[in-house]
C-alpha cells in the first residue's frame, strides 16, 4: 500500500483498510449466531466474539471523531449494534438459576417491600371486616360480595348440612374437586397478576381489588360463623389459605409498589423508578403464582384426604411454618445482604 500522505488519500481510507478484516470477521460470527444462537459458535469463536466486539466499538469511536465517510460510519454503527445484541442480548442460564430465583431473589424482594405488604394486608383485612360487619345486620349482603361461580353452592339459602358437606366433601367428588381446584388456581393466579398490573394506575385499582377480595373472604367467614361453624370453616380454609391469601397479599403489595414508584419516585426519574420497581415486583408476582399453585395442590389433594379437624389444623401449622421460613428467612445470605445494600 502506498503511504496515505504521499498519495493524498484521506486518513480514513488507511484506517478502514487496516481494520476491515476484523470487522468482516465479527460480521460473520454475528450473522452465524443470529441464525442459530450462540451454541453454533465453536469455543474459539466464542472467545473471539467479545474481543472483536470491543475492537469494533473502538473503531466506531475513532471513526465518529475522525472519518468523513458516512457509509463507513453507518456500517460500523450497525455492526456494533448487531454485535451488542449478540454479546449482551443472550442470557446463558447458569446452573441453579431457578433455585436461586425461588429461594434467594424472591424472598429478598418480598422483604424489600415491607411497607406495601403491610398496606396490602390492611386493605384485605379492611374488606373482610366490612363484610362481616354488614352481614351481621343483613345476610343479603352476601350476594353482593361473592361471585356465584366461586361460591359453589355456598350461600345463605343453603342449609347448614349443605354448608358442612362442602367443607368435608371427599371421596366420590374428589375427581371433580381436582378440576375445581385447577380452575381456582387459574382464576386466582389471573386475579393476582391483574392486581399487580393494575398498580400502574397509581395503585388505586389494586387497593380496590384487595378490598373486594377481602369482602369475599369476610362474607364466607360470616356465613359459616352465623351457623356456628367458625372452627370447622377455618380448619377447611387455613391450610390452603396460607399460601393462597399470602399470594394475594404479595400480588397486591407488588401492585402497590408499582403505584408508589410512580407517585413517589424519590431522587430518580419516574421512568427509572418505575422500571426498577417493575422488575423487583415481577419476581414477587412470579413467586406468588407458584404459591397459588401450591395452594391449588393443597386444596385439590390434601384437603380431600384429610377430613379430621385436628389434622387440618396441623396441616395449617405446617404450611404456616414453611411459608414463614421461605419468605422471611430464606436468602438471608451474605450475598443477599450485599444485594440488599447495593442500589438496585
Amino acid at each position, binding site marked *: 500500500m502506498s503511504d496515505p500522505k504521499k498519495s493524498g488519500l484521506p486518513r480514513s481510507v488507511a484506517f478502514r483498510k487496516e481494520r476491515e478484516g476484523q470487522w468482516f470477521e465479527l460480521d460473520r460470527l454475528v450473522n452465524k449466531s443470529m441464525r442459530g444462537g450462540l451454541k453454533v459458535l465453536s469455543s474459539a469463536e466464542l472467545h473471539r466474539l467479545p474481543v472483536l466486539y470491543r475492537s469494533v466499538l473502538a473503531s466506531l469511536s475513532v471513526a*465518529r471523531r*475522525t472519518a468523513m*465517510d458516512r457509509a463507513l460510519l453507518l456500517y460500523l454503527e450497525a455492526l456494533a449494534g448487531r454485535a*451488542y445484541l449478540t454479546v449482551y442480548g443472550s442470557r446463558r442460564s447458569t446452573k441453579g438459576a431457578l433455585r436461586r*430465583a425461588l429461594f434467594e431473589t424472591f424472598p429478598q424482594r418480598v422483604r424489600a417491600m415491607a411497607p406495601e405488604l403491610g398496606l396490602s394486608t390492611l386493605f384485605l383485612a379492611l374488606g373482610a371486616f366490612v363484610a362481616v360487619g354488614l352481614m351481621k345486620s343483613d345476610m343479603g349482603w352476601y350476594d353482593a360480595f361473592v361471585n356465584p361461580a366461586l361460591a359453589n353452592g355456598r350461600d345463605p339459602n343453603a342449609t347448614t348440612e349443605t354448608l358442612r358437606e362442602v367443607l368435608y366433601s371427599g371421596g366420590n367428588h374428589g375427581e371433580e374437586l*381436582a*378440576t375445581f381446584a385447577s380452575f381456582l388456581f387459574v382464576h386466582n393466579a389471573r386475579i393476582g397478576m391483574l392486581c399487580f398490573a393494575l398498580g400502574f394506575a397509581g395503585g388505586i385499582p389494586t387497593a380496590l381489588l384487595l378490598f373486594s377480595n377481602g369482602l369475599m373472604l369476610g362474607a364466607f367467614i360470616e356465613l359459616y360463623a352465623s351457623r356456628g361453624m367458625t372452627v370447622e370453616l377455618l380448619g377447611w380454609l387455613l391450610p390452603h389459605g396460607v399460601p393462597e391469601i399470602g399470594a394475594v397479599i404479595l400480588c397486591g403489595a407488588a401492585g402497590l409498589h408499582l403505584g408508589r414508584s410512580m407517585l413517589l419516585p424519590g431522587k430518580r426519574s419516574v421512568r427509572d423508578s418505575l422500571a426498577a420497581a417493575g422488575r423487583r415486583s415481577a419476581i414477587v408476582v412470579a413467586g406468588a403464582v407458584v404459591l397459588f399453585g401450591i395452594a391449588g395442590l393443597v386444596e385439590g389433594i390434601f384437603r380431600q384426604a384429610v377430613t379430621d379437624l385436628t389434622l387440618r389444623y396441623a396441616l395449617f401449622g405446617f404450611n404456616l411454618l414453611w411459608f414463614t421460613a421461605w419468605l422471611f428467612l430464606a436468602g438471608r445470605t451474605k450475598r443477599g445482604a450485599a444485594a440488599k445494600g447495593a442500589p438496585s
Partner: protein
Amino acid sequence: MGDASIAPLHHEPGERRIEIIGPEGVPLTFPAASIGERAVAFSLDIVLLGLTIVTLVLIGAFLSAGSQMSFPMGMTLIAVFVVQHGYFIFFETHWQGVTPGKRLMKLRVVSRDGAGLTTDAVIARNLMRDVEVFLPAAVMASPEQVWGDAPPWLLLPASLWLLVMFLLPLLTKDRTRIGDLVGGTLVVRLPVAKLQQDQAARTSLVPDSPDDVLSFTAPQLSVYGETELETLAGIMRKTDAGKASNRDLQIIAMTIARKIQFEGPLPQTDPRRFLRTFYKQQRSHLEKKLLFGERKADKFDAT
C-alpha cells in the same frame, strides 16, 4: 472536547432512533421498531399462541372423552394458563429477546439501561400485557362482563384509562408500551450492516500517480462541508452503478468548479476524474481539520 465533535449521524429521514449505552460506555443507536411492525409481530404471536391453545384444548377434550375422569380437564386448564402466560416470557428469555413473531419482523427487546436483558424485566413487561391488550379488548367485546356491577361513575374514567394505556405507544417518543415502561425495556429493529465501497479508495478511474494532476488549494477545499461531501459520494456511487449520465456529471463538475473558483483545466472533458479527485482531496482536508476538532457541517457552516 469530547462529544461536541461528534456530529449526529443522518439516517433515513424521519426514522426514529433509540440510543443505548452499553457497558463499554459507547453510545449505540438502533432504529426504533415502528407501531406497525410491532402490531404485525404481536398478531403473528397471537395466532401461534391461539393455535397452541386450541391444540391443547382438543387434546384435553379427547382425553377426557376417553375416560370417566374429569382429571384431564383440570390439567388442560392449567396447561392453557401456562402456555398463555409463559409464551412470551419463554421466548424472550430463551431467544435473546425475540419471539417467533418478532423474529419474522426482525425485532428485538433490549434493556433500556444497556445491560443484558434480565428475566425479571421480561416477566414485568409481559405481566402488563393483560391490562394493555387483553383487558381493553375484553371491554370492547363485552363491557358488561368486565365491569360487572361496578358503579356507573367508574366506567368513564376506567374506560379512558384503558384507552390511554392502549394508545400509549403512539404518544411516547420511543414507542414504549406500558410493559416496556414497567420492564425498563425498548423494542428495536435489527440494524442491517452492509459496507459500501469507499469512494476515496477507488483507483480504477484515477491513476494513483504520485500526485494527482488536478490539485486544489486549501481555500478551495474549505468551501464545502460534510453534507456536500456525502452528496458527492452518493453521486459517485450512482456513477458506479451506471445510473448517472455524463451530462449530469458535467453540470455538477462545472457547478463545483465555478463555486470554488477552480482555475485548472476545465472539467467538461472528464467530469468523473474531476469529481473523484475533488472528493478525495476534500475528504482528506475535512478529516485533517477534524483531527483538530473543527467540523464543518455544510457550506453554510462558517466555522
